[in-house]
């Protein structure tokens, strides 16, 4: 089970990183989301993996999974949601202004492409 979770984290990280390195904002934002998933699962896994022992106190039950990472991940999910909304909005604003959704600054085409040189 641990192997599954660890590989899932690794694969999501790799996928996320690959997408973060793309040239347009949309895939980059998706890559960030993927990275966020990876890190959330990682943070969650810092409490180790326990099946069938949710941290809801019940009479007679003594085994509970570690609740703290869950609370941390919850906070992280909320924050990253806010961040995603913001980055989407800013990226959209940038796109609407310039009609260009490249992440990288584009070199000044005016300088490099002299026109009318027949």
């Amino acid at each position: 089970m641990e192997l599954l979770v660890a590989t899932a984290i690794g694969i999501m990280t790799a996928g996320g990183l690959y997408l973060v390195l793309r040239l347009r904002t949309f895939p980059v934002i998706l890559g960030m989301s993927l990275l966020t998933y990876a890190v959330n699962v990682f943070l969650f896994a810092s409490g180790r993996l326990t099946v069938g022992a949710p941290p809801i106190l019940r009479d007679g039950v003594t085994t509970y999974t570690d609740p703290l990472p869950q609370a941390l991940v919850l906070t992280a999910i909320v924050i990253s949601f806010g961040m995603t909304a913001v980055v989407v909005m800013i990226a959209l604003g940038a796109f609407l202004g310039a009609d260009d959704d490249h992440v990288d600054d584009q070199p000044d085409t005016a300088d490099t492409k002299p026109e009318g040189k027949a």
Partner: protein
Amino acid sequence: MTSALGLLNIALVIAFVSLALGQVLSMVRLMLGPTYGDRILALDTMVINALGLVVVIGIRQGVQIYFEVSLLIAMLGFVSTVALARFILRGDIIE
């Protein structure tokens, strides 16, 4: 009782396997497409299957804790389906 429990365990395994298979096959449809309608349909199916998974996990673990989770999936799962469909139909999903 033991035979009943035995049967239940077998049934649980079968349920898990078929739900898992269902997810995988839906995923295949999603990847294959070819139309967005198919893909949204596959997603919708996966959400419902996921709901089934949670229910069966609940049975398996013998806890009622997962009720809220399943309720949420049932209640809100269709929202993303509708949103995706609306996107294809209208572009703007809130207009």
